[in-house]
């Protein structure tokens, strides 16, 4: 042994005053790196419960569960992701796919529990020490697994479309439709929002697969008005779409239309099939609009003999008589209705109940009667001067325009109203003026400011593009009549349209008066049902609920032989009327089946 060997252990003392290279308390003093994929965080307020995190998880580590304080509402399932750390592999696909960026990962990575079940938890609901951690993994801006913007649909330029009533939008071609369908994450929030609960993710998947026959089958499972709804549905589904949070909602309406456009009438008819086995029961339906014909379709498929009575000379209700052809070609209406006829529904037009046949006759000759009268009467403002013959109602003019009648196109017109009917008549008049006089002179005035118009934003935009002057927040004050002729409309400015409780209650500023020139004033405000066919005695017998027929959940009135459905019960909306038609058909069928059993 050398001297060096004896002294060398003591050389270690030279490290006594150096900084340590190890971590004193590694469990507490060593944070994860800034973008570490640690424990999950979820901003409960931003989360919409779409479940895309659950769908994408390769290890089935996520379950969507109901949580207290997150109720189901439009565009939010109310469910929240519950994560099982026994399965999670920390890949962060759930974070990358999150449609609202509510799901993130903190940089925390230590968690000590004695109970193994504790490692299944609901981030954001079950409080954890990393809930407020600022570091960790978030989906980087601009990084998305799906396309943000919808595929644009080709449409006619304003200067072209104003020349005719040809349909404005072209419809997707197959490639465009597939690209648009690819954006859908199939969360299904739209299904809950659609009044008819259409199987939206499934039929979008059919578009993606190019399987249009499957798509049509899915459409007809819930909506025999799919061709019509594919063009003019109010598409509430798109307001609930998860994609709208960081981009455009999926063009659900256009994809529905695309499916219908790819399949012939004969294919539709074959997919739908014929009537059900005859039950021997007879049902009379008054009104050939979406509610009446949907109920007729369902009841015929169930084997009942269904006759639909329509007062006008063609079926379709307000879809035909209230919506201009540039939005909804008559051929599309005819095709949907022909499919409904193909299941055995007998539609008799030009039959006015109460005049040609009495309601009592229908009652005695049928096992059930359904009223689906729609809202075909226009309300009047009843402002001074509005009783002049050249003050017309929009629904009447639209009906005349559809029938091809000449109602005397005004060189200059003023429309009162801010809903879709107002836009429809303004744009119809614009086309007629263009054809007859070579230029558009339509002014549209509405009580609401633009942000609160009831019309679809696309309608407002397109009306403006077509040369219609839109004046918002103007209240009709007087129709001006000089020498027996209408010369225009005076309006006052609307200072506010809602009261402090949010109720619609416009207040006017009389010092701000404007005159809008026009030889015709068109009222396009509320609509109502013509229920005169009921007669005084039945009106008195029936139970009413604040102006509407009182019906039970199945649409049955207080008189047991009578049902009511559609706009006259639920208010104006095509897909809501379709949903109501299904509901009422189920109720009628149930009652008729029960009668058969008690025989």
């Amino acid at each position, binding site marked *: 042994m050398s001297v060096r060997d004896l002294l060398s252990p003591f050389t270690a003392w030279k490290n006594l005053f150096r900084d340590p290279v190890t971590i004193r308390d590694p469990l507490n003093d060593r944070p994860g790196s800034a973008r570490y994929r640690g424990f999950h965080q979820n901003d409960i307020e931003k989360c919409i419960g779409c479940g895309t995190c659950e769908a994408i998880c390769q290890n089935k580590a996520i379950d969507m569960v109901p949580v207290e304080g997150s109720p189901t509402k439009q565009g939010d399932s109310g469910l929240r992701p519950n994560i099982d750390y026994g399965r999670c592999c920390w890949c962060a696909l759930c974070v990358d796919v999150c449609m609202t960026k509510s799901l993130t990962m903190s940089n925390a990575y230590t968690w000590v529990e004695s109970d193994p079940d504790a490692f299944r938890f609901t981030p954001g609901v079950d409080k954890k020490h990393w809930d407020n951690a600022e570091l960790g993994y978030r989906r980087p801006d601009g990084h998305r697994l799906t396309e943000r913007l919808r595929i644009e649909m080709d449409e006619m330029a304003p200067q072209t479309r104003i020349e005719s009533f040809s349909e404005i939008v072209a419809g997707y071609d197959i490639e465009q439709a597939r690209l648009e369908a690819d954006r859908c994450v199939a969360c299904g929030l739209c299904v809950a929002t659609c009044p008819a609960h259409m199987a939206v993710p499934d039929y979008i998947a059919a578009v993606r697969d190019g399987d249009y026959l499957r798509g049509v089958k899915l459409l007809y499972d819930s909506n025999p008005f799919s061709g019509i709804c594919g063009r003019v549905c109010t598409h509430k589904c798109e307001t609930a779409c998860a994609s709208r949070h960081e981009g455009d909602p999926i063009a659900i309406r256009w994809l529905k239309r695309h499916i219908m456009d790819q399949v012939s009438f004969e294919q539709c008819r074959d997919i739908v099939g014929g009537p059900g086995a005859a039950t021997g029961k007879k049902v009379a339906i008054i009104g050939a609009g979406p509610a009446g014909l949907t109920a007729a379709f369902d009841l015929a498929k169930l084997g009942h003999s269904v006759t639909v009575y329509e007062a006008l000379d063609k079926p379709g209700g307000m879809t035909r008589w209230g919506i201009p052809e540039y939005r909804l070609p008559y051929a599309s209406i005819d095709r949907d209705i022909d499919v409904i006829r193909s299941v055995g529904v007998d539609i008799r037009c030009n039959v006015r109940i109460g005049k040609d046949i009495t309601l009592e006759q229908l009652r005695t000759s049928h096992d059930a009667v359904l009223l689906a009268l729609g809202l075909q009467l226009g309300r009047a403002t009843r402002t*001074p001067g*509005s009783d002049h013959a050249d003050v017309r109602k929009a629904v009447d003019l639209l009906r005349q325009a559809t029938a091809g009648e000449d109602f005397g196109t005004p060189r200059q017109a003023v429309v009162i109203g801010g809903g879709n009917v107002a836009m429809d008549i303004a744009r119809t008049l614009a086309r007629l003026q263009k054809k007859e006089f070579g230029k558009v002179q339509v002014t549209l005035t509405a009580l609401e400011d633009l942000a609160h118009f009831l019309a679809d934003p696309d309608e407002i935009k397109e009306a403006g593009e077509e040369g219609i002057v839109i004046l918002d927040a103007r209240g009709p004050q007087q129709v001006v009549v000089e020498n027996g002729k209408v010369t225009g409309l005076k309006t006052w400015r609307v200072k506010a349209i809602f009261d402090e409780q949010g109720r*619609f*209650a*416009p*207040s*006017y500023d009389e010092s701000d008066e404007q005159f809008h020139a026009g030889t015709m004033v068109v009222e396009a405000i509320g609509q*109502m049902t013509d229920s005169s066919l009921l007669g005084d005695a039945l009106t008195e017998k029936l139970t009413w609920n604040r102006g509407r*027929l009182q019906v039970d959940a199945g649409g049955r009135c207080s008189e047991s032989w009578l049902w009511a459905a559609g706009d006259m019960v639920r208010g104006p909306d095509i897909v809501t009327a379709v949903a109501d038609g299904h509901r009422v058909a189920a109720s009628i069928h149930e009652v008729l089946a029960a009668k058969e059993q008690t025989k």
Partner: protein
Amino acid sequence: MTQNGDASRGMESLRGKTTLREILEVATGFEAGARDFYRALIPRVSKRIRYLVEDLAAEEQTHFDLFSAMSQRADIAEQVKLEIERTASDSKFSDCLQVQDLGEQPDDQSVLQYAMGREQAAMMHYGELAQTAPPGPIRDLFQYLAGEETRHKLELEKVYYATIYRGGGV
């Protein structure tokens, strides 16, 4: 039937009243008259819009109860002072409606227009009386009554909009 005729003559009778209680009793009588008018109208209108007339009769009964209770109070003047601080401004909407006779079988729009016109007339009459009365408790009372009628008219206007502009019902 015109809405301003009888009511106007009744309003004029208020000019001769000298005590708060007398004025309130006359105003209460107007409310009772309106309530009875609507109650009599109920069977004349179609059942589907009867709820509207029933609501109007109930509203007038509420006013009747309010004024009756106030006329019984010993501190009418103080109460009126408190109440007129709850001002309601006229929205001017009813100025833009044609005032119509109700006719034999009025519809919902006619009934509402009639009711709004009646409230409008009452509001204006009370307002005029307040302007011509000397400052003091009687003027305060007329101001209070005008405010109440204005408030009632505003409520009716909201129902009118919900029914006529935003409706879609029968």
